[in-house]
């Protein structure tokens, strides 16, 4: 049997071991990474492993922190943003056309949601991370600021710009039929 990781980390003195943390939080971290990467399971797993490796190497300090899971989120999100910069990307921020999405049709709601999904995928990594932390992880702007290492004003400005881009692409309300 291979040597358990927790023998040198955390121990059984009342602190959480690394393995216990992974068992408790691994699924949540993977779901977060999956949402960040727009459903790319391979990249999501890679991000989670990157975060966990960092935590393992600093486990004594991490385990003593108020929220090891917040630490993991921070490493994961920053790794996502850094990797997003390095990837050769053909993505460009969506630019809304003046006339919106075209003529209304019976499936307008479905089409609009699909458009929002595509727009979310096209956001720059940091903008996407801010929206995911706010609307999926339900963090407030102060917590997002702390976890991303950016000013709260930057969080608000980034979210505001991203939402404005999404709003501009939605069909206008009250459009006439036919």
């Amino acid at each position, binding site marked *: 049997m*291979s040597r358990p*990781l927790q023998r040198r980390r955390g121990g059984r003195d009342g602190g959480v071991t*690394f*393995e216990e943390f992974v068992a408790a939080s*691994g*699924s949540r971290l*993977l*779901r*977060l990474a*999956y*949402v960040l990467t*727009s*459903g790319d*399971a391979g990249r*999501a*797993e890679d991000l*989670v*492993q*990157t*975060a*966990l*490796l*960092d935590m*393992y*190497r600093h486990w004594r300090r991490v385990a003593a922190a108020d929220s090891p899971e917040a630490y993991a989120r*921070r*490493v*994961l999100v*920053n790794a996502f*943003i*850094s990797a*997003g*910069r*390095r*990837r*050769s*990307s053909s993505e460009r*921020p969506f630019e809304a056309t003046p006339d919106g999405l075209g003529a209304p049709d019976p499936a307008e709601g479905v089409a609009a*949601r699909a458009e*929002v*999904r595509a727009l*979310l995928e096209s956001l*720059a*990594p*940091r903008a996407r991370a801010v*929206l*995911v932390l706010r*609307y*999926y992880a339900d963090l407030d702007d102060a917590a997002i600021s702390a976890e991303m*290492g*950016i*000013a709260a*004003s*930057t969080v608000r*400005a*980034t979210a505001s710009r991203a*939402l404005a881009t*999404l*709003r501009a692409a*939605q069909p206008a309300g009250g459009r006439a039929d036919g």
Partner: protein
Amino acid sequence: MADVERTVRDELAVLAATAPEPGDLVGAVRRRLRRRRRALVAGPLAGVAAVSVVVALVTGPSLPPVVGGVGEVAAGGAGSCHEMYSTETLPDAQFAFDGTVTGFGRPVSGGGGGPSYVGVKFTVHRWFEGGSGDAVTVDLQAPVTVVWASEESMSYGVGTRLLVAGAARWGGAPLDKPVAWPCGFTRYWDAQTAATWAQVFG
């Protein structure tokens, strides 16, 4: 909640519901750790090139750095730019500051292959993002010889004032093994660009 915010929340929840269950994450971390330790053993050979650059900077060459440079700073290192500098991409940086080079040292971001970095020490005049205090050391790609105003110079050196943007090399906090980005994200200081950076980072 406004419609678009509700839609974003719903879409992200739908996506999360399709996420796979994690496999053996502890085992995967163990394997990565073993690979990393093997790379660290092999690393000193890769570090020799960086150390040589540092020695050259400390003992010579005697070329002075560029004075009054404009725009992107030329530096060593191979590879293409995956992302070019612009006011759209600048916010992706984890840290950004206005600083003057005060010295050189060993790289601070660790080994692991990739560009040949040197640790560059700065007096920081202003942080735009990701840091505080009046000094920092970040890794940059080594300065190179350039011809500026008909004179051979080093692209940057002690006394060069730069606008520097970058990120943690391996993820984590902004100044956790920080690396300055090339491709325009590290630039000679000028008042107008500095004002733009201040505006971009709010």
